[in-house]
């Protein structure tokens, strides 16, 4: 469907990882060691104060996600899926436990450092697209590059057009988000997530606001990105889409109820 993947990094990104602490049974160093996980979550607990009391959403979650994996996080509403994803993006901090992503200890980083790290290493795709309404689709894609200070001005524009071409929106580049459909906005959001060529993409219900046909198109894009070496983690309610992913983690009542990588089956 889409043929322009030249803008994307094709090499695995494990070389950028820094050594992880020797927890969770992970090897710490040595050429013979197993590949380090892109995401390493260790015994994470997350509570929120509600009405004067703490409500615990994540109750000691631990998991690893490796480079190139395509992971679905599923589960009933209010059981901690999005909260777990927020731990991986640094949008939320654990009440206790540790979160390492691309080798960085997100639980210990400042908000500013997290922003810089996200700009370089992570592409986030929101359920409601979250495009800046006053900028065109192309400008929305250029913005992360400007924040990160990557590429020259000319290269940014060329790259934005390449990425829009990738998601089939090159002809809509100069339109404002409000002038295109939800599916097109989500595709543009994917292009934006790829702007700085991050090794990992996360999506919080990225197809939840789309019709079935458009959701399938977006999913196909994710699939091809993973084929090109990206790591993709996606929260979804869609059992059918989740069933098409190699790894499915089910969160129930704040705990991992099932992880297909651990032999739980998909």
């Amino acid at each position, binding site marked *: 469907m889409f043929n322009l993947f030249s803008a994307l990094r094709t090499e695995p990104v494990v070389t950028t990882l820094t050594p992880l602490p020797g927890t969770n049974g992970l090897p710490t160093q040595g050429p013979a060691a197993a590949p380090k996980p892109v995401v390493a979550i260790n015994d994470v607990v997350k509570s*929120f104060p509600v009405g*004067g009391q703490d409500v615990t959403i994540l109750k000691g979650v631990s998991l690893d996600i490796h480079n190139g994996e395509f992971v679905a996080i599923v589960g009933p509403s209010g059981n901690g899926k999005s909260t777990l994803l927020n731990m991986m993006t640094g949008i939320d901090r654990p009440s206790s436990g540790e979160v390492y992503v691309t080798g960085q200890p997100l639980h210990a980083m400042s908000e500013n450092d997290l922003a810089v790290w996200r700009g370089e290493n992570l592409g986030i795709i929101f359920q409601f697209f979250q495009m*800046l309404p006053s900028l065109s689709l192309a400008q929305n894609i250029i913005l992360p590059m400007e*924040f990160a200070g990557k590429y020259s001005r000319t290269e940014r524009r060329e790259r934005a057009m390449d990425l829009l071409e990738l998601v089939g929106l090159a002809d809509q580049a100069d339109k404002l988000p409000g002038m295109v459909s939800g599916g097109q906005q989500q595709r543009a959001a994917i292009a934006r997530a790829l702007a700085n060529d991050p090794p990992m993409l996360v999506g919080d219900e990225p197809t939840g606001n789309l019709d079935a046909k458009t959701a399938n198109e977006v999913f196909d894009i994710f699939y091809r990105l993973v084929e090109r070496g990206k790591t993709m983690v996606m929260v979804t309610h869609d059992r059918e889409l989740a069933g098409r992913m190699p790894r499915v983690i089910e969160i129930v009542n704040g705990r991992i109820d099932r992880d297909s990588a651990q032999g739980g089956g998909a």
Partner: protein
Amino acid sequence: MSVIYAKLWADLWGNKMRTLQIVLIVALGALGSGLALGARNLTAAAISADWVASAPPAMKISAAPPLSEDELLALKSIDGVVAVEGFAERKIEWRHHPGDPWQAATLSTRVDYAEQTMSYWELVAGVWPHGNDFAIERGYDQTFALAPGTQIETRIDERVRPVTITGVLNSHEVTQGFMADPTFYVDHRRFAEITGDDRFGIVAAQLAVHDAAGRYDPAQAAAIDGAVQDRLEKLGVDSQGLKPAPPKTVRVDNPDVHFSNSVLKSVFLILGVIGFVIMALGMLLVYTNVSALITQQVGQIGVMKAIGARTRQIVQIYLMLIFVYGVLAVMVSVPLSMWAANGIKLIFLTLLDANGRGFAVDWRAVGLQVVVIFLSLLLASLIPLAKGARMTVREAVSTYGLGGAAGVFDTLIAKLRRVSYTVLLVIGNTFRNISRLTLTQVVLVGSGILFIAVMGVRDAVNYTFGPVLTGIHDYDITLTLQHDVRSARVAQLVAGRPNVAAVETWNSSNGSARPRSQRDHEPDDQRVTVFGMPLDTTMFAPTIRAGRWLQPGDDQAVTLHDELAQKIGVGVGDWITLRLEGGRSRSGVVGTFFDPA
């Protein structure tokens, strides 16, 4: 163009009404300060330059009877008197055409128009008055259609003469703002012919009143004035101060300072205070607007952080926005304030008949305005900007799920029962953000206070210069006689004129006053004017501050202006020594009064 600049432009242009609102609030807030300072500086500079250029005398007094040219020149021999020049004026009547009603006017002259040594009269149009021709004071030529070339009739001592207006003069002291009747000028020879008197009833003198540092020395001025007054008393001449020093006239004053200086200072002080309050209230509005802007853009801030924006970059974006607001506010505020400041300057210069009416820019006021605009924007933006920049991505983008504790107020509202949900919604929305509510109330109350204060000052001024002043001095016309005349004769003459409802005759004499405890006369004794008036006067009703007004049966009793009583250091029950032309007398103070005139 950088995408960040594109966002900036889109935020400005896409929210035109909000941009306009913020720009106008800031511009109008700063306008007050720029206007007050600009109007003050421009007006003061123009008036001062015009005033100093006219070489104003330090002394200006009336002389009754008038002085001859020799007597006038003799005053130059007094220590401290640098130059003396004589002026004369009298009331005349004029009309445009035979059959028109007669109107009052003043006819003025000086020794020699070509040899003016002080208090320069400036030729504005036409030619200097010569022969039978008159000139007219600037402003009145427009008001009364008396441009050069106009022929009028004058009536002086019942004799009617045709006169041609051939020039327009600016005397720097006579203005339409203070005198409704026109002033005509004529050369001295002609003045003497038509009035039958070649003497000078007005004496202007330049005095050595500056100390070594060039500052005005009021003690020195008073000492010279005392010597002049002594000389005139020896000649049997009564003199009164004619230098305007609102709300009164004085004999000597600082020649370097325009007589309206103190009044202008007060006006611009009030204007400055109002400007400051407007600016302070404007800052609160800017704060609420920038807060609203940040709140509106919280989601975007979160997204920008999620895609890699550092806190510094977020702050930069919004500082740029604030900067653009500032630039736009400067573009609105500075021209507006300079235009208004020049308008105010023009009003005062016209009122005072001063030159320097061209458009001018006061760069100090412009500088102040620019600083005020950017500083107020920055100060008002600091808190909301810091809040926005510190906001976490989760706080910014989360639209659902658990995210934080509800506020105490919302928790309390949620517990209310048997109250309509609509009412709860209204209460919740009104009181949820206490700081915003407080700011809104402060702005509303502050604006209300300012409005009431301005209205209050206006009413107080109207009352003071209306009922209070006219209540104290309840008469329409004052005639000052150059020679002593029997009171009954004058009263009879005046009462016989049409539409005269009542007449009173007062006497006055100049002298000095000292407390009785001070045995001997000293040169710096307080100069006073003593008025003698009927005990049952209906035309003078001062506000009694202490004691009482004069009563039948009072012997050797005086009432003093409370300001004079303070200067002399006496009060009700004390005795003072008055030194007048007729000699010394002791009087008991039975009351003190307030009279702003």
